[in-house]
């Protein structure tokens, strides 16, 4: 069937600059560039261009530009090009539209409507270059009070705590979805920066066990790669119930991506599809979750915090309260803009709620119920920079996960082709030719640099507010004001209007 789909991008080549070196041909994994020997000319199949900028970045003479296809439709606010093109695709394939990365729609981004405070006159700001400034964070449940014996020795013993030097961790991305080199980059950077990375549900490759102290291992609905050694190696065990990019939906790693290495790590035959069911089939209710939480605590001899991750949905506050009561030491909320290696587009773009609102209501609810101390709150889904981190902490988060931001540090340009397995940057692919494009040493350096930069910025913001420890910002919503929000939004966020 001839496709009616117009090309998304135009690839333009400056012929005066082009030296026909064919770097673009080698770099493009979407089969756009080719050398026509007959005409001795470099050419493009522009309809294949994903807009990933791999060729533009690596062209040695800067001869390439990628532009949006200027093809104009007649203006129609309802029938915007995206909807027209989605219909064209489905008319030609008859299937669910798949996509990668996070929601790219225009639902309100509340971070952009929140502003931070600073000290003036009545209290001094603190200069982090000259004064200590503490970002250290401990994840894990805390008791409501401490008891000392007569000799002033601690009677209370805390459940396991995990120390983070920066309140930013790397979000779950499974081996198979991303390459081993990406896993290695994340593991090394987390170790260097004193934070954690997360295996996702694809198991942990044996070469990465040495990073166990900085590793969160996931136990998800497919139970891929879960065995005693895997749990023992980890610092934290995370039960994955849901994911912001696809709440209520399972996962599907196609057989082509299940290489020999992926197959051993996931503990499934090579070349078979890895299907993660939509629910965990042993968790149909909250008491079932409690059983799995305690099964994992038993299995790890109560030495590791157990985290439970859900997608942020309408009843998050009540669900989170149940999770805490079910024994979760850490609860993870993944918002509407959380990303994925593959998800139905309709789910990614329409299901779930913005993380800011979910976080605010969960933190408030747990406080109202007097159980906020019992678990740490970690959020994820669209955190773009240190300001988002600071605002999340002020709303009540103990720490955040970053996935997309970490991948951007490694080269990702958000072309949303993750589900094709053709990632030209070698990130979201198991193709060995592509995945070697990530050098774990350079990858780790880029990721560590990102966290270092954010740490410095966080310290500047804290110092500006006149506080020198992150725990004094945590849940301190007076540090925030809302701009351009209505009363209900301010109320849900627990934040006052700027100027008031």
């Amino acid at each position: 069937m001839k496709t009616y789909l117009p090309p998304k991008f135009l690839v333009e080549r400056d012929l005066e600059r082009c030296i026909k070196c064919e770097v673009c041909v080698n770099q493009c994994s979407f089969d756009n560039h080719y050398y026509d020997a007959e005409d001795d000319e470099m050419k493009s199949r522009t309809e294949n261009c994903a807009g990933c900028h791999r060729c533009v970045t690596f062209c040695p003479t800067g001869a390439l530009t990628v532009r949006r296809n200027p093809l104009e439709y007649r203006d129609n606010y309802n029938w915007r090009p995206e909807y027209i093109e989605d219909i064209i695709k489905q008319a030609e394939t008859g299937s669910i539209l798949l996509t990668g990365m996070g929601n790219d729609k225009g639902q309100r981004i509340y971070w952009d409507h929140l502003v931070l405070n600073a000290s003036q006159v009545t209290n001094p700001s603190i200069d982090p270059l000259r004064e200590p400034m503490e970002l250290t964070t401990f994840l894990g449940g805390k008791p409501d009070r401490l008891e000392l014996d007569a000799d002033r020795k601690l009677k209370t013993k805390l459940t396991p705590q995990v120390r983070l030097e920066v309140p930013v961790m790397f979000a779950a991305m499974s081996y198979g979805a991303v390459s081993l080199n990406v896993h290695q980059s994340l593991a090394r950077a987390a170790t260097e920066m004193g934070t954690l990375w997360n295996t996702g549900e694809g198991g942990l490759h044996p070469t990465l066990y040495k990073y166990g102290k900085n590793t969160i291992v996931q136990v998800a609905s497919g139970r891929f790669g879960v065995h005693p050694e895997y749990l023992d190696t980890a610092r934290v065990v995370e039960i994955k119930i849901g994911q912001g990019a696809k709440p209520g939906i399972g996962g599907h790693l196609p057989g082509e991506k299940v290489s020999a290495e992926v197959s051993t790590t996931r503990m499934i035959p090579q070349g078979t599809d890895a299907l993660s069911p939509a629910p965990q089939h042993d968790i149909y209710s909250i008491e079932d979750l409690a059983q799995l939480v305690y099964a994992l605590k038993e299995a790890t001899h109560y030495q590791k915090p157990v985290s439970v991750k859900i997608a942020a949905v309408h009843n998050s506050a009540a669900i989170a309260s149940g999770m805490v009561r079910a024994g979760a030491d850490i609860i993870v909320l993944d918002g509407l803009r959380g990303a994925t290696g593959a998800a139905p587009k309709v789910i990614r773009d329409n299901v779930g709620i913005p993380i800011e609102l979910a976080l605010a209501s969960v933190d408030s609810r747990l406080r109202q119920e007097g159980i906020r101390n019992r678990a740490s709150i970690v959020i994820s889904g669209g955190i773009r920079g240190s300001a988002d981190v600071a605002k999340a902490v002020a709303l009540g988060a103990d720490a955040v996960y970053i996935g997309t931001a970490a991948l951007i540090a490694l080269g990702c340009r958000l072309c949303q082709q993750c589900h094709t397995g053709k990632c030209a940057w070698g990130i979201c692919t198991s193709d060995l030719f592509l995945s070697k494009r990530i050098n774990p040493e350079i990858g780790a350096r880029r990721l560590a640099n990102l966290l270092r930069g954010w740490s410095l910025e966080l310290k500047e913001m804290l110092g500006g507010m006149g506080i020198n420890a992150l725990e004094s910002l945590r849940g301190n919503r007076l540090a925030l004001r809302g701009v351009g929000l209505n009363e209900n939004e301010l109320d849900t966020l627990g934040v006052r209007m700027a100027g008031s």
Partner: protein
Amino acid sequence: MKDLDRIQNPYRDDKVIDACSIFGMMDTSGKRFSGKDIIRAIANMHDRGNGLGGGFAVYGLYPDYADRYAFHIMYLTKKGQEEVESLLRKKFHLIHQEEIPTQPTPAITDPPAVWRYFLEINELKPEGKSDDDYVVEQVMNINTQLQDAFVFSSGKNMGAFKGVGYPEDIAEYFCLEQYEGYLWTAHGRFPTNSPGWWGGAHPFCILDWTVVHNGEISSYGINRRYLEQYGYHCTMQTDTEVVAYAVDLLIRKHNLPVEIAARVLAAPLWSDIERRPPAEQELLRTLRQVYGSLLLNGPFTVIIAHHGEMIGLTDRIRLRPLTVGTKGSMLYLSSEESAIRLVCPDLDDAWIPAGGEPIIGSLQAPIKVDVEEMVAHAH
């Protein structure tokens, strides 16, 4: 319900912001002395206040009624007084009541009536509730529910005198030179966003705990939210209230020794904690992990007092001043050293404590006076 917020914080700011002078003096041998010196000392720091609040707390004030709860209550109207008194008669045995003597003072205009009551818990107290919790409940009830009345202080054998004016004017008005106590604290206030009302002046009191405070606690938002989980409602919207409740929670309810509680309010840096011996390290780390939300961050100096103890504390990087002086069994705490020197020119010792280091004066551990050395010194 009384809209304290409206009275205390008419512009609905995040909190009431003020700066101040503070002074505390205690005879750790328990000997009582008059208010003369502390009035001179706090007056010496006149310029640190703006006349919108001054106050004093005195311990060992009512030896004749030492076992009764002494309530100091301010009334804006006669009706307020009638309401409160009928409540007190219902909830307590009223042993004695009188208007607190005052003298006309030019600087004090339009003062409310201030009365004192000596009370005994009666049989209405529910079984299982401690006397202190019962009293706190009644005080909260009067302060938040009843119009035109406000409880200044509610401890045994102690009391607070406070109001709108410079502290020396308040002292003159309440004739404080005539009272004696073994521990006095004082406060001169410089609020920036409060009109100044009598109830809003320092010391802030609950039971026999009093707090005088100089500073702005930038972590107020989370301190307050944390305390709300334990049933404390910050009706006054002042930093000081947060300090008082935090102390009440840690010391009275959670039974932590005062030195340990100080390590919550002004926690050592993580890097300092790591340098301590293992057992201390574990204690300090766990304290910070559990009570991180009560870390008072931002500039502050407080003098916290209760029976037998006076504690001076600054924030951990000492952004507000505190000077300590000792003379014999006397302990002095002040915003400025000059104020101490004014009333005690020949101090044995004077120093500025490190940020976050609590200075504790206690009847249990009086400052030891080396008599021989004193005699030698005199010669």
